[in-house]
Structure formats: C-alpha cells, structure tokens
C-alpha cells in the first residue's frame, strides 16, 4: 500500500481526535469573530419587535433533548425579547420528550425577567395529536388545553383573556427539530386560522424550509446554532450560541481540509493506477 492508500485507510479514531481537539480548543480559548445577521433571522426579530405591548405570542418548542444545543439558545433569546416587549407569552410543545426542557426554559427566563405564571405567561405543556391538536387549538383553545401544565384552569388565567382560538394569537413561532414542527403548524394551523408564523429549526431541516420562507408562508427562519447566534447579536445578549461559533468555524474548516485531503489522495491513487496500467 502506498502513502495515499495508507492515508485513506487511516484509523478513524485519529479523525475523531482531530474533531475533538478542533471543538475543544476554541471553546477553551475563544476568539470572538464578528457574526453577520441574515435577512431570514432578522425577519423573526423585527416582527416581534414591531408587536405592540400585550400582543399574544405563542412559542411552540417542538424539540427533544437531542436538539437542545441548537434550539434551547433560540428559545432563550426569543423569550427574552418577548418578555422585554411585555408580550403575553404562551409556551407549549408538540414533542413529549421535550416537555421538561420547555418547562425549564420558560420558568428560567420568566424568573430572570420578573414575569409571573398565569399573569404574564402560561406554559400549556404537551398534548398528543400534533396536527389534530393544532386544529383543536384553532377551534377552541380551552378545549385543547382545559388546564395549563401545572393544573390551573386555562379559562381563569389573566394572560389568556380574550384569546379564544389561534385566530386571536398575533404571532406563532415553532422551534422545530423534525416532523411535527413548522410544516405542521402551517398545514393544520396558519392555512385556516391565519395567524402569522415564524420558524426556528435545527441545521438538518433548515434547507427544506426555504420554500416556505420564499413563498411567505413563514416570515422568518432561525437556522441552527448560527441562527441562534445571530439572534443573540440582535437582542444584544451574546451567550452560548455566540460562544459556540468559534468552535463551529474550527470544525467546519477541519471537515473542509479532510474532504480536500481525501480528494487529493484519491487523485494520487487514480493517477498511479493509470500509470501502472499504461506500463
């Protein structure tokens, strides 16, 4: 086996080590490169910024612990902005395993911003059905969620006063990690009940949501950790997402170098084989 062949069959644990080091070092020694904000992230931010005080904002945290690194920072940034704007916030999730995380983020940010459950925000929790749940909420919010997550009757909550159905919600943002997410909210929700819809998502599903962004079916899209970092820059509170961007830069370049090397070695092997055949 020549050098190129040996390099292509290198023990994959060496590649694991390279990726590990490229992730760890920038986290320990951050540089803090500037982050440019994209129009799709600005779309969500500017819409919330323009909402008058007292508007109803529904944040559906449709993800599980696997997607926490990408979507949790998005949830924190959105809630901080919504609470700062004194919007009436409704939190919920379409994903059962994500209920605890959604509860944690709402409680944490609300406490930080001095907001009270029942008066300034409500956490509805999870209910089965996704599409049929959204339709049920669109028909009658109190029928879909007779109580909030903590057992308080929703009809008695001050924060939901005047909100009978999804038609009374001013803005819905779905933070999605897969199916039962943004598309579900559009198909079973916005299509009939005509609320404005924005989205946040993991990097895996982000490219697939651009058709909805282009057609105006969603008015903005926060894609992955990069989107979360852009949002943190917009609200002026740089935290975990921004801190992770240096590591993101390092790992991306590591992958680019690996891919280039792979192709260089492959070319060398092909050339030497052709030369061997010519002889």
């Amino acid at each position, binding site marked *: 086996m020549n050098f190129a062949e040996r390099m292509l069959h290198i023990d*994959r644990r060496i*590649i*694991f080590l*390279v*990726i*590990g080091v490229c*992730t760890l070092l920038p986290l320990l020694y951050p540089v803090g*490169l500037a*982050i*440019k904000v*994209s129009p799709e992230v600005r779309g969500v931010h500017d819409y919330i910024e323009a909402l008058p005080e007292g508007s109803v904002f529904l944040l559906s945290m449709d993800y599980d*612990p*696997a997607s*926490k690194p990408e979507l949790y920072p998005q949830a924190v940034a959105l809630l901080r902005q919504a609470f700062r704007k004194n919007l009436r916030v409704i939190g919920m999730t379409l994903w*059962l*395993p994500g*209920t*605890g995380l959604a*509860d*944690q983020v709402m*409680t944490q940010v609300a*406490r930080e911003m001095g907001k009270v459950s029942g008066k300034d925000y409500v956490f509805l929790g999870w*209910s*089965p*059905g996704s599409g*049929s*749940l959204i*339709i*049920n909420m669109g*028909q*009658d919010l109190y*029928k*879909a969620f007779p109580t909030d*997550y*903590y057992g308080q009757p929703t009809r008695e909550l001050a924060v939901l006063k005047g909100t009978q159905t999804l038609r009374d919600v001013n803005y819905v943002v779905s933070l999605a990690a897969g199916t039962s997410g943004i598309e579900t909210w559009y198909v079973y929700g916005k299509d*009939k009940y005509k609320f404005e819809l924005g989205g946040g998502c993991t990097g895996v599903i982000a*490219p*697939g949501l*651009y*058709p909805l*962004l*282009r057609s105006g079916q969603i008015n903005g899209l926060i894609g992955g950790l*990069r989107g979360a970092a852009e949002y943190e820059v917009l609200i002026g509170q740089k935290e975990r997402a921004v801190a992770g*961007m*240096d590591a*993101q*830069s*390092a*790992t*991306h*370049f*590591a*992958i*680019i170098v*690996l*891919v280039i*090397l*792979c*192709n260089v070695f*492959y070319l060398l092997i092909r050339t030497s084989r052709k030369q061997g055949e010519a002889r």
Partner: protein
Amino acid sequence: MIFLRRQLPLVITFVMGVVFAAQYYVPHPRSELMLTEVTKWLQIIGIFALVLGVTSLFHIHAVKIRRKEPGWGYSLVLYAGIFGTIAAGFSYSSTASQWVNGKETINGIMTAFGWIYLNMMVPLQGSMFALLAFFIASAAYRSFRARSREAALLLIAAVIVMMGRVPLGEMLLPASGDVTQWILNVLNASVRRAILIGISLGAVALSLKIIFGIERAYLGGGKE
C-alpha cells in the same frame, strides 16, 4: 361476521375520510363543532397509541431476560431505568409538600423526576446524537470523493456553504456568505420546492388510496 372483520373497517375509513375532507369546505357552525369534537377525540386516542409503543418494548426485553440471552444483564438495567423513573414520577416531594404527579418542577423547585430528566435523560440523549459529529467527519473523509462532474458540483456547493455559515469563512472569503445565501434562497429553494410538491402529490394520492380502500396495509395482519 366477515362484514365486521373485513368490510366494516374499510367503510369506516371511507366515511370518515370523505366527511373530514369535505368538512374543510363547509364553514357551517355544526361542521366546525364536529371538527372540534373529533380532533379532541384524536388527542385522547393518541394516549393509547403511546401505550402500544411502550408495551412492545417491555415484551422484547422481558423475553431476553427470561431466556437469559447474551446481554440480558443490560435488559435488567433498562428495567431499572424504567421503574426508577416511574417511582420518581409518582413520588411525594417533601420540599414542595405535594405529590410529584409527573412534574419536573413544582413552584420552581426541582423534583426527583425533574432531576432524572435533566441529569440523565438530557445528557444521555444529547451525547448519543453528539457522536454523529465524529461519524460525519469520518464518513466525509472516507467517501466524499469527486468521482464525477456532478459529485464535484455537490462537493463545491458543500464547501461554499460550510465556509459561508461560519464567521471565519465569511472573514476569509466575504463572497462565501453572499453565495451561500443565493444557493440557499434560490437554488436550494427551487429543488426543495419541487421535492415538496412531488411528496405532497404522493401523500394526497396515498390518502385517497387509503380512503377508497385500495391501500389496506394500515389495518395490519391478524386472523380475519
């Protein structure tokens, strides 16, 4: 009896399918009320669907333990995880002075159930998926080769997007950010739109086949 076993399910599917497809176009209050009620029913039926998923898992690992198959000790760990979590979920919280009833926090105080969720379930699931970062790098190194012009185009697009989505890439090559935006908003959007239209047409066709009884796989097997 044959009608009950074979034909009745197909009749139910047909009637329900046609009624609820037509309901979309009928804004009459009675029609809306029917939609509200039946979507509520679907939420309740969804609870039983969860039960089905959970019981099959129990069965698989119970068999493993009973037959003492290799690795049956790990099945015991699995059962310990299940029953430990259930016990925490229905325990009494002395700090909050009430039953936990499946809540992660009570009045801002973390329960034992919440402790298991945040310190076991979240790190375990997060770490499982974090492993993928290593495997994608290894796979990219071993197999991402420009064997043809199309593959080379895929590779170039991937490199541009990877550069354009990170601050270092935008700093070294400012054009990469703009080109990435164009690729995502125009080229990628057009392809994904075509795929979305195609998949949606297929989904509608499948739904129609189910309603008209041509597609029956959803009914499952079993003696008729």
